[in-house]
């Protein structure tokens, strides 16, 4: 299932491809006839599309992303939420499912609580969130792990292969926020810690190919050691 793609480390300004045959993808730009990397990361080429996968950097919010944030403040119209990006986000009252008592905002989300939300819109004034969808809302129990947001695609894997492997291996519910916060909820603390270990393993090894196989091995080893 794993596609063999050649990945090389590139630095900003490096020429990735020349001529009209190639298309510039994410993290690249066409200057004249050359496609150059504008970010430090791994270059990848598929179907004549050249792109650079960044390895570091602050989370860039995008419309439609599922994120995990922390309630920072309560106003008359909703909640200010810290989503670990350059800009703070806002969850307005209208974006809560069901009826909301204007005096009871604190009962829905209190300051310091964690929330799973979806980015409704990113505009010049700020970021708007919503919780009007299945699987969104307050986090009551479980564990939250923070990783760099550029590692999120590796944790999810191709078509969710890696994330389902973690879920199966640890028996936990895992929700990955695009901003790099991951919510793990299991029946036992041991299970949650196992899932956390797997995530840390992936972030450390995120540059090697064939990682799904390695993670499977890792789970076997960890479980064998415990019993």
């Amino acid at each position, binding site marked *: 299932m794993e596609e063999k793609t050649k990945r090389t*480390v590139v*630095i*900003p*300004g490096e020429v990735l491809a020349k001529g009209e045959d190639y298309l510039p993808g994410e*993290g690249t*730009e066409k*200057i004249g006839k050359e496609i*150059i990397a*504008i*970010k*430090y*990361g791994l270059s990848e080429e598929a179907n004549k599309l050249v792109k650079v996968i*960044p*390895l*570091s*950097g*602050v989370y860039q919010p995008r419309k439609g992303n599922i994120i995990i944030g922390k309630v920072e403040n309560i106003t008359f119209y909703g909640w200010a939420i810290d989503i670990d990006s*350059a*800009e*703070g986000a806002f969850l307005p009252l209208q974006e809560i499912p069901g009826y909301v008592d204007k005096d009871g905002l604190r009962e829905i989300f209190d300051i310091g609580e964690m929330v799973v939300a979806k980015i409704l819109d990113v505009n*010049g004034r700020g970021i708007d969130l919503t919780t009007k969808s299945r699987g969104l809302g307050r986090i009551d129990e479980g564990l939250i792990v923070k990783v760099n947001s*550029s590692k999120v695609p590796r944790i999810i894997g191709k078509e969710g292969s890696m994330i389902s492997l973690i879920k199966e291996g640890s028996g936990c519910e895992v929700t990955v926020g695009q901003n790099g916060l991951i919510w793990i909820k299991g029946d036992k603390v041991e299970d949650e810690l196992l899932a956390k270990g797997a995530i840390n393993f992936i972030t*450390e090894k995120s*540059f*090697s190919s064939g990682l799904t196989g390695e993670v499977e091995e890792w789970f076997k080893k960890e479980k064998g050691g415990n019993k």
Partner: protein
Amino acid sequence: MAKDFKRPDGRGVEDIRPMKAEVGVVPNADGSAMFSFGNTIAIAAVYGPKKMHPQHQQDPKKGTLRCNYNMISFSVTDRIRPGPSRRSTEISKITEWALEPVLMIKNYQNMVIDVHINIIQADASTRCAGINAAALALAHAGIPMRDIVSSVSIGKLDKQLVVDVDKDEEDWEEGEGATDIPITMTSSERLTHIQLDGKISNDELKQVLELAKKATKKVYEVQKKALKESLEVKE
């Protein structure tokens, strides 16, 4: 050019002091790097992009680069008074101007990228080492950039042009004395910064630029190696 010219430390006229570069030296920063020319060592740390504070400095049209150059009090033989000075404020601004042309931060409206450059050991050419470290740290922080800049200082000792000035050469007093010309270039030989402290003729300045082109290439190779190797280790 006189081949028998003797530099105080025995280097050839076009030799740069041994260079070292490393990225990821400050774990808490979003990106960081160390760069050294012999005994001159600079550490740069990048924080952001983050919301600009104070708010009145926010630019709704584009992102802002904010550099802070600082010489640590023990970096020179006589202790220097810590804190901002006229000199460090000027060099901070110069560093911003040297780096800005390669950054692509138009989409980071109302945001700022903070670059903190600390000189932990000084032996002349500190601003060049600072710019080199800052360029590496910005790349390491995942900031979009058109190119990487490399900086080197060209000196004129009496009538002789030399590459990468050190402290003994900066204090040259024979003949016409010392002239220091820090130059920053991109890898495609485009100039982003040039300063001149002293007197120089037109022809000599042309030679200086040729020397700088060659020298910044060498610096660029060291920077490139540092960025590429920091990943190989992890694999």
